[in-house]
């Protein structure tokens, strides 16, 4: 019997980060937090109220925030910077590159509102290139957890993971389906949610839930499709991904990110080295997003459960 993941109650992943940050603050005086006028949106306000001397409001000045965090890390503290994904990456790429990664400073970058599903704010805020930007940096770890519980856990682990970490999460309320303190969540390792002999969907972030729904829907046709949560996009669990590539020629990747430089590229990269497979990608097709509700956006830009099902069918036809 394959497990049935149930929604334990929808919550936003950013609140999972906020809960994790608060717990960290209670346990460890080295934890400090910085925000660029988005403390409430990124759910850092509880930490800020509880530990005002360890919270630094930076105003709308992200470049300086990254540098200040690098200096705090250099002094022996564990800084979390929080803002939206586009302001946390593209806007401050050079600061992250030089003052953080090249300088070996263990800054933890908490990026909320990633992907299309922040919704109505539109394409200026819908960061779809961040995984590529961050995983291209030597020394950076990139984590994209799938739900509230996993985002809380990822925040706890990020604090003590060596080096800088990019932690990607989102704005909307989404199904929370992994257990609290999930022992199967390990940074740097794939998380196998469903085993299956007829194909595999590698998914990350919000699309992991949709991948599960797609796999369940395909069971009605007698297909057992595996669902693998690739929450850590760097370092890549090459062995874990290769193991699933070896089992089935039906391979799909699913991510709320641009077609380029994200999970699809990672799976294809492992495939070219270890087990050649054609990979059908569910991703944003080299375009910008727009205003709308999260589900409308996933539908219009080809990231819905139905699109993942269609991708699996295409992969079966290819195989």
């Amino acid at each position, binding site marked *: 019997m394959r497990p049935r993941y149930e929604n334990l109650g929808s919550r936003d992943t950013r609140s999972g980060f906020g809960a994790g940050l608060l717990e960290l603050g209670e346990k460890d005086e080295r934890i400090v937090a910085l925000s660029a006028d988005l403390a409430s949106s990124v759910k850092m306000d509880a930490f800020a109220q509880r530990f005002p001397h360890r919270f630094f409001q930076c105003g709308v000045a992200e470049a*300086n925030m990254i540098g200040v965090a690098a200096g705090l890390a250099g002094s*022996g*503290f564990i800084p979390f910077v929080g803002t939206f994904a586009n302001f946390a990456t593209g806007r401050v790429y050079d*600061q992250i590159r*030089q003052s953080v990664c090249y300088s070996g400073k263990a800054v933890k970058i908490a990026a909320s509102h990633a992907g299309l599903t922040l919704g109505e704010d539109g394409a200026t805020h819908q960061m779809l290139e961040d995984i590529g930007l961050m995983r291209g940096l030597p020394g950076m770890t990139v984590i994209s957890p799938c739900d509230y519980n996993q985002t809380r856990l990822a925040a706890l682990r990020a604090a003590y993971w060596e080096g800088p970490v990019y932690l990607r999460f989102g704005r909307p309320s989404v199904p929370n389906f992994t257990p609290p303190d999930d022992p199967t969540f390990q940074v740097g390792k794939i998380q196998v949610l469903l085993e299956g002999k007829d194909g595999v969907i590698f998914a990350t972030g919000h699309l992991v839930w949709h991948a599960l729904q797609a796999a369940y829907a395909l069971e009605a046709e007698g297909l057992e499709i595996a669902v693998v949560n690739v929450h850590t996009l760097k370092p890549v669990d090459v062995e874990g991904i290769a193991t699933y590539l070896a089992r089935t020629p039906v391979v799909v990747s699913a991510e709320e990110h641009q077609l380029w430089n994200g999970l699809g590229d990672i799976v294809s990269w492992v495939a070219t080295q270890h087990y050649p497979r054609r990979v059908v990608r569910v991703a944003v097709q080299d375009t910008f997003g727009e205003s709308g509700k999260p589900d409308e956006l996933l539908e219009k830009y080809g990231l819905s459960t139905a699109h993942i099902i269609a991708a699996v069918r295409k992969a079966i036809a290819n195989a």
Partner: protein
Amino acid sequence: MGVSAYFCFVVEDLSRIAAQVRRDIVRMVYLAQSGHPGGALGAADILTALYFAHLRHKPHPWNPTGLGEDVFILSNGHICAAWYSILARSGYFPVSELATFRRINSRLQGHPATKEGLPGVRVATGSLGQGLSVAIGYALGKRLAGDPHEVYVMLGDGEINEGQIWEGALFAAHHQVGNLIAIIDRNYKQIDGDTRTVLNTDPLEAKWEAFGWEVLPLHEAHDLPTILRTLSEARQKAHQKRPIVIIAYTIMGKGVDFMENDHNWHGKPPNKDQFEKAIAQLPETLGDF
């Protein structure tokens, strides 16, 4: 944590050190046939005064966190030939290593870096505008850790074109980072020419005052007693509510007559004739590397 090495030199000693630093700079840049001699020569006196008579710092054991000592960050990383000479002659690493400047497999990268583990360097700089923010972070770290020392950061006056500098200027004043002392190398020169032509930053003192900083002009920026007095004044005024900026009116290329006040020496090595002319003006005082 105590400070084990608090250097105290008389002015004659400092001027001998500064002379050798200038000679090191010109030899390093000539040997590498690349580098940035102009700004490095201009900052040699201030850096000498800082490291040999002002900073409470410990070359051994090298402590990357900087807790328990004063911290210095060179934000205008391109003038690192001066800093490397100072660090080596302060005991952070062997003076002989200066010969590896900008060469393959060296710890003395073209711009300061931490990856190769060079003692004395706490953050990579070179892409401009970033060091002030990092210095603020170290200063906040000292505040949180209850460390009574200061953080010093040098900025180029071309560098302050960068918007991030002014983000940092707002932040440091807002958060009352009183243990931060910035030094602006005000030589009025940047790569493409005079700062007043490229992108005017005057009136500079009024700008920093308006941002809420304590401004200390340093007009005799190559006179060691004046530099030391200004640094002492900065320390006396530190640990209040205002960050401090010393605006040092330096001469780019100081000490080599044909390099002085000429922006073309920003990032160009001398050829053989120029090197011989330059080195004839720079006495060997402490022994060449």
